[in-house]
C-alpha cells in the first residue's frame, strides 16, 4: 500500500539553531562570533518515520516539549525539516491554534475575507463559504464589529469557523477541542468529528486520551523529539500514562529527597508548548 499514502515521513528531523532566537541582536551575535561561542543547537524532532494511509487518523501524544507541535508545523508546510523528507499528498488544512485573529481593527466579515486570502482560498470560494462561516461562528451583530471588541471565546469561535470552513484532504489539529463555552465546544467537536470522518487523513495532537482511543486508529508517542512507540491507540496511551506516572514518581522522589512537599510540584499543568515562549 506504499503508493496510497497521504503522508509519508522518512527520518524526519527538525533542528533549532538557538543562535538565532527572538532575542538575538546584532550586538550579541558579534559578541558570540568574537568569543567563538559554538552555536547552541537543539533537535526538536529526530528520526521520525511514519506513513499515514488514506482514511487513517493518527494521534500524536507526549509530554510538553516533545515536538508534537513542531511535527504538525512541518506537515503543514510551515517549517522545513533539517533532515529527512516528508511528502504530504492533498490539500492540507491545519488548526494549529485558534487564536488566529487576523487583524484586530477589521470586522469579523473582513477577517473572514483576510483569513481566506491567508489560507490561499480563491475569492469565489470565500464568497461562497461566507454565509456558512458567519452562521457557524454565530456572533450575531458582532460580525460587523472590529475584532478588538471580541471576547476570547468569540475570537475562538470565529477562528474555528474560518479554519474549518474548507473540507481538507488532510487535517491537522493541535489541541483545538478545549476552547469556547460548553455549547460551542459541543458544536466544534461535532464539526471536527465530521471533518475527521470526511478527511482522507488526520493527524492530531491532544492531551485528551479519551479522544485518542475513541476517534483515532493509530497513535504515536513522542518524547524529547523521538518516537517512543507507534501503534494501536490503546497500547500507546497505556505506555504514555505509565511513563507519565513514572516521571511524576521520579519527580516526587527527588523532591522528597530535597525535602520539598511534592504537592507543591503538582501545580496546575500549563497547556500548550511553553518552550519557545520563554
Amino acid at each position, binding site marked *: 500500500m506504499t503508493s496510497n499514502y497521504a503522508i509519508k515521513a522518512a527520518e524526519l528531523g527538525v533542528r533549532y539553531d538557538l543562535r538565532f532566537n527572538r532575542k*538575538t541582536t*546584532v550586538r550579541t551575535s558579534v559578541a558570540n562570533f568574537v568569543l567563538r561561542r559554538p552555536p547552541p543547537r537543539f533537535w526538536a524532532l529526530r528520526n521520525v518515520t511514519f506513513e499515514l494511509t488514506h482514511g487513517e487518523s493518527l494521534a500524536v501524544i507526549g509530554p510538553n516539549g516533545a515536538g508534537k507541535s513542531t511535527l504538525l508545523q512541518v506537515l503543514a508546510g510551515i517549517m522545513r525539516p533539517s533532515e529527512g523528507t516528508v511528502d504530504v499528498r492533498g490539500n492540507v488544512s491545519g488548526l494549529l*491554534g485558534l487564536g488566529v485573529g487576523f487583524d484586530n*481593527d*477589521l470586522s469579523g466579515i*473582513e477577517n473572514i475575507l483576510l483569513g481566506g*486570502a491567508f489560507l490561499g482560498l480563491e475569492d469565489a470560494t470565500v464568497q461562497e463559504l461566507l454565509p456558512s462561516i458567519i452562521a*457557524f461562528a454565530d456572533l450575531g451583530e458582532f460580525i460587523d464589529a472590529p475584532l478588538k471588541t471580541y471576547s476570547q471565546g468569540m475570537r475562538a469561535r470565529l477562528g474555528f469557523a474560518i479554519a474549518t470552513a474548507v473540507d481538507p484532504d488532510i487535517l491537522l489539529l493541535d489541541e483545538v477541542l478545549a476552547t469556547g463555552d460548553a455549547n460551542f465546544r459541543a458544536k466544534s467537536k461535532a464539526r471536527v468529528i*465530521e471533518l475527521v470522518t470526511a478527511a482522507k487523513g488526520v493527524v492530531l495532537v491532544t492531551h485528551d486520551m479519551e479522544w485518542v482511543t475513541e476517534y483515532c486508529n493509530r497513535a504515536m508517542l513522542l518524547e524529547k523529539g523521538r518516537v517512543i512507540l507507534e501503534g494501536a491507540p490503546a497500547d500507546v496511551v497505556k505506555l504514555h500514562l505509565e511513563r507519565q506516572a513514572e516521571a511524576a514518581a521520579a519527580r516526587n522522589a527527588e523532591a522528597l529527597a530535597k525535602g520539598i512537599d511534592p504537592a507543591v510540584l503538582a501545580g496546575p499543568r500549563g497547556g500548550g508548548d511553553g518552550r519557545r515562549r520563554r
Partner: protein
Amino acid sequence: MLPFRAMSSGDAAVTIRQTPGSPSPLTLLRQGVTDILSRRRLIRYLVQADMKKRGTDTVLGNLWWILDPLLQLIVYVVFITIIARRPAPDYPLFIFAAIVPWKWFSAVITDATTSVVGAERLIRQIAFPKLVLPVSVTTAGVVGFLWGLIPLAGLMLLHFDRISPMLVWFPVIAVVQFAFTLAMAILISAANVFFRDLGNALGHVLRLWWFLSPGLYSLDNLRNVPYVQNHPIVADLFGINPFAILFEAYRAVIYGVPDGPQPSAHPPDLYALGALLLASVLLLGVCITFFKRVEPEFAKVL
C-alpha cells in the same frame, strides 16, 4: 445541524514535498515572484487593513503624511537660512522636492522592519508566502506618498513660475524609487527576524543617510565646497548614493535650477536613473532570493 456543505477543495492532489536544504537561487527567485503575483488579493487586503488601521482612508488620518514633511520643512528652512545665510532661491521648494520622497522611503523602511516579526502568530500557524508582508507595507507606503504630494502640490502653486511640463517625469522617478524601496523593505523585514535590534540601528542609519544625500543641498552646492573642489572624488562618492540620483532627479523636474529664467525644470539624468533602475531590479532579485532562502527559518526563530 451543521451549516457546512461538503466542499471539494480543489480536485488535483497537491503534494507538499518538504526536503532539507535550499533550492537553487534561481528557483527561489522564481518562487518568490510567484508568491507575490499569486497573492495579489491578500496583498490588497493587507494594504486596506493597514489603511484602515492608520485611518489613512480619511484626511485626518493622513494629517501626519501632510504635516510631518511641512514641519520638517520649517525646521530646515529656518536653520539653513540662518546658517548658510544665502540658500538657493525658492529654498522651501528646493528641499521639499527631497523631503517628501524621503518621508516615503523612511516610513516604508520603518514599517517593513516589523512587518514579518509582527505577524509571528500567523507565521507559526499558517503556511503562507511571507513575502506578502513587506510587499504590502511597501504598497501601503505608496498611498501615504500620494497624500504627501498634497503639500508638495501646494508649495508648487506658491512657486508656480517653476511649474513645467517636465513633471511628466515625476512618476518615472517614483517608479525607480519604488523598486529600490521594495528591495530594501524585503531585505530589512527578513533581517529583523534574526537581529531584533536592527530597528534601533536603522533609525540612526536613516538619519545619517538623509544628511549624506543631497536633499538640503544639491550636488552642485557640494562641488563648490573648497575641500570637494580639491578632492572631486568626494562628490563622485556622494553621487553613487541612490538617493543622490533620486533627489537630483526629483529636483530637476520639480524645481529646475536655482537661477536663470523660470521655469528651468529639465529632464532628469536618464543614464543615472536607468542605471539605478537596473541596479534596483537586480537588488530586488537578490533580496527576494535572500528572503526565500531564510523564509523557512522564520517559524523556528519567531
